[in-house]
């Protein structure tokens, strides 16, 4: 089960110092200071934890951290 803590831990593992609040999870990546490489890094960490790959088609529809959580919990 992926949750906000999973995301925070994975993001921390990438070396990011962004401190996420609950409201950040529904915002677009850019609005919380995540660039494209930050997101790639995060998804790599999450793949290591969950073993789940995200297709390009699905990735194009994931616009926030909440979208990622919901997708990985499907």
């Amino acid at each position, binding site marked *: 089960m992926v949750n906000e803590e999973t995301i925070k831990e994975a993001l921390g*593992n*990438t*070396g990011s110092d962004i401190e996420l609040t609950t409201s950040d999870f529904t915002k677009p990546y850019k609005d919380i200071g995540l*660039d*494209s*490489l*930050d*997101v*790639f*890094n995060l*998804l*790599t960490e999450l*793949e*290591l934890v969950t073993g789940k790959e995200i297709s*390009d088609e699905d*990735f194009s529809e994931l616009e926030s951290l909440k979208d990622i959580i919901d997708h990985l919990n499907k």
Partner: protein
Amino acid sequence: MIGIKSIASYFPETTIDNIEQAKKFEQPSEFITDKIGAVRLPVASEEQLTSDMAMLAVENLLKSSDLKREQIDSLIVVTQNPDNAGLPHTSAILQKKLELSSNVAAFDISLGCSGYVYGLSILKGLMEQAGLKNGVLVTADPYSKIIDREDRVTSLLFGDAATATWLSSEGEWQIGKPIMQTDGSGGKELCVRDGFLHMNGRQVFNFAALTVPKQINSWLGDNHLSADDIDLFCLHQGSASIIDAISRRFPSVKDRFISDIEVTGNTVSSSIPLLLEKYVIHSEHKRVLLSGFGVGLSWATNMIFKE
């Protein structure tokens, strides 16, 4: 035993200010300095051919080492941007431009970022089998010729360079036994379409971050070594972020992974020999691990070492 004796390189004089270029794509300077890592990108001139860059790298090798032109008996060019679409092969054009003897085995290798690791083993194997004494492994892959400057993903990343590595029976750096792997199903993630380079940044990043550490660990296991036994890790410099993502998988030796792309950009098959020239060839290190990964998808790991 055939080993590496010397390395030289060549960079085009013209460079692109990558921070300025990033403004066109509304990317902040921090994205360039902290994530891509390359603030300047060397770019070959329009009229400069791959063989021209290769020639200048070999000329620099001849100037900086004891190698004599007439001693060269084998010549390999690693490139996927050959002169005249590869016909004739760039290494033959180079043999002419360098005015080398006709007693030279010369051929090209069509590989990208894994090409240097492959090339070392191919040239070493050829020289040992054929009894050759002085081989030169050239890398020259000017991606600027296939980059769409309006494409954010590729135009901020790649730089042009060429290198020349002298392999000799008197080479101090011995070449280990490589692991080489290929996954053609990923070929579409990094390829040329309609004359321009296309890169699926997420898939390439994911491939590098997850697959390369596995291969490095396999290589270490096969050779009964641990990461702590390696003095320096010279990986293909895909981007600063990729090097960081791979090195995180080796926390005890993370600081032994070189990240140096600031004034070169991603120079494809030249990135590893550029590191060896700068950090290794005259160093006191004993064991240096090399890993190249990219187009193909293709990835290869080996170690160079000295007694």
